[in-house]
């Protein structure tokens, strides 16, 4: 990922060596907790205008659960590439980066492909620093909703939300009355869809 040097989030989520990981984890947790709290607020506001209340509540529940979990010190591990929260932030960060690039190109007369050196600190404004910016948190909230929509299948959505609420595969399998293998398979598909949809369709 070429953009990794662009911000702390992507830096944290990139290929860290084992030693760095241990050092970065507390930073990440602090950052992440704030980010999710901010994003939850944004999500709430978004949902006020939303149509189906139940569904939105369900989506929000992941954020609520996460905040409860965070209070007990439960955070996604930086090195867990399969974690959906981590994935959500990675996808949002990449998107923010792409947007920043596009705006910059437009300013400079469009069409020109930005080189590494060209990148403005706008991306960094959004992402860097010890605290997440409200803009980025809003993007996370929007991205979260979009990614749930992309899943075009209620079963997949349920698994995604349950997973982000912090349930294990076994617990999800029991809740849904399906095989554990099925939960694992759905999660795999969710990740693939998100990675595909998260990058192929910049808005």
């Amino acid at each position, binding site marked *: *990922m070429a953009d990794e040097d662009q911000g702390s989030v992507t830096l944290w989520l990139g290929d860290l060596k084992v030693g760095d990981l241990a050092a970065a984890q507390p930073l990440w947790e602090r950052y992440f907790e704030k980010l999710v709290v901010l994003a939850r607020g944004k999500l709430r506001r978004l949902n006020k205008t939303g149509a189906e209340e139940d569904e939105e509540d369900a989506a929000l529940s992941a954020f609520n659960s996460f905040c409860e979990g965070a209070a007990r010190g439960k955070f996604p591990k930086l090195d867990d*590439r*399969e974690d959906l929260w981590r*994935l959500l932030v*990675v996808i949002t960060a990449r998107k923010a980066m792409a947007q920043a690039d596009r705006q910059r190109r437009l300013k400079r007369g469009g069409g020109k492909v930005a080189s590494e050196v060209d990148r403005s600190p706008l991306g960094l404004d959004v992402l860097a620093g010890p605290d997440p910016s409200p803009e980025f948190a809003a993007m996370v909230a929007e991205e979260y909703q979009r990614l749930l929509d992309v899943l075009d299948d209620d*079963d997949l959505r349920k698994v995604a939300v349950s997973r982000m609420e912090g349930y294990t*595969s076994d617990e999800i399998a029991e809740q849904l*009355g*399906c*095989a*554990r*293998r*099925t*939960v*694992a*398979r*759905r999660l*795999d*598909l969710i*990740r*693939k*869809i998100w*990675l*595909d949809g998260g*990058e192929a369709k910049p808005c």
Partner: protein
Amino acid sequence: MLNHERVSGSAADDLAEARLIHRVCERFEAAWRTGGEVRPRAEDHLAEVQGPPSPKLVEELLALEIELRREGGERPVAFEYLQRFPERPEMIAGLFDDASPTAGDPDETVAWPSFQSQSTVIDSAPRLALGPDGAPAPARPAPAPGRLFGKYELISEIARGGMGVVYRARDTVLNRVVAIKMILSGTMATADERGRFQREAQLVANLDHPNVVPIHEVGEQDGLPYFTMRLIEGGSLADRLHAYHDDPRAAGRLVAILARAIQFANEKGFIHCDLKPSNILMDRDGSPRITDFGLARHASESSGMTVSGAILGTPSYMAPEQASGQRREISPATDVYGLGAIFYELLTGRPPFHLPTKMETVLQALYGEPIPPRELRPDLPRELESICLKCLEKSPKDRYPSAAALADDLTRYLQGDAVGSTGLFQKLRRWTRREPEVVSRLAGLGLVSALTEVNYRILSPSPDARAHASIQMILALWAALTLLFPVLHRRASRSDRVRGLWSAADMLCLTLSIWVLEAMDSPLLIGYPLMIAASGLWFREGIVWLTTAMAIVGYLALYYHEAIVWIGRRPVFIKPSSLSYANIYVACLFLTGFVVVELIRRIKMLSRYYEVRQHVRSK
């Protein structure tokens, strides 16, 4: 797994594949949970996928099925999956070996038993969970390569056959590489049978001959009987057939060497019974070594299958007494036949009998004659052909009395001496067996022709020279066609179209002769149903129906001819007897065809049954 540094093209493919896997598996699980008694099968769901299913899909679906079965309290075993998906042993090993949290509890994945040494208590504990106490040994799967099996470390799989699996393995005590053959327990169900196998293998281990693969050790580990042999690195003769294709003398030398080794074993009371190129291993220096001595016989005996057990192995190389299941007839001459079959394949590049289905191959082995090698390869020495065919004689007493006699004859030829050649009578007999259709027709036609001659010259009160001449001409034409069609038949590589044409020509000749003889009311009409019945010998429903249709057409043509003659005659009201009951006759022709077709269907069904069964067994 998630890897976002992947190139995007393959990521898209990955997604498409993951969606497909998801769809298939969701459907399978839904069918499983709603199906009640009717349980979906992974195979059926895989078959619905367009194109060959990807390994990932198969793996995912099988893992799901295994989990669902475990959920229902079953204990699926790897052996079953090996039988169902024989082409994916590694995947199945992985599925039953998988300790990943998604594949089930680690403590549940004991179906693939641990093949550690029995001496440690810990290792044997999970195995006890496998089968209920006192029950016959459960069907045990073969261990995956890379495992420890007793004192042997399995390196890689070499071959897999009807009885078991052969691995390259390292003897960790003597530190040498050996071949280890494990007998899958499906083949030997009871302890008694396993004991017999052991005793037999121990006897074979005493066979000490430079051209026999030596057996090092016989034993049983984790309920799997096994034996170890010297590892022969050069592959089997089946992979080297082409090397002999242009050198019949080398083939002769090789068979002579094999025959001497067989003679040695026969003298010690061993009959191989499953001689074929894949059982001849080639040393690095090119010297042949016979393997699987006596074990094939043992396996088929102990499997408790009397008839189909005899058809265990490939019928292409099987002596008739073996194919017909007459165990008492098995003698050293059976091995002479096997040597002849190998020789035949070395000379011609194909086994003596090789037809699309096993049933047809077995029938050929029982009743047919192989095509003489020189017809396939005219440049072969006549002597070698006659030696080869003598080995392949149907009756054991017509073959060489011993493998030594075969070796002697071959050596004589190779040294340039005269070989005990085959007489004219034997050649004629072989020809009659090889072309039964031609011979039976010619004999029948000859007989009819002779009788006609007798009728004309002696019995007939008022001989009609013209009718006689035309009937004899028709018979001659028929005979000519009879000689022509086999040639066409062979040219067209035995196509059904030629067979159909042949039937049609027969029918035409029959109709013509009845017409010339004006014999509508004579017993000659029996010819039609006879032909329909005879056409059943091809085992092709289509040909029977065609022949039936031709018979009906032929008969109706005769009928209308007769009717026209009758109408032209005076007085009209006396109906000739030949015109009565025509509808009944036509219906009977149709019924005859139907009965013959029904018989063919049943025979085919039986044949399929045995083939499927054997297929399953050989996996």
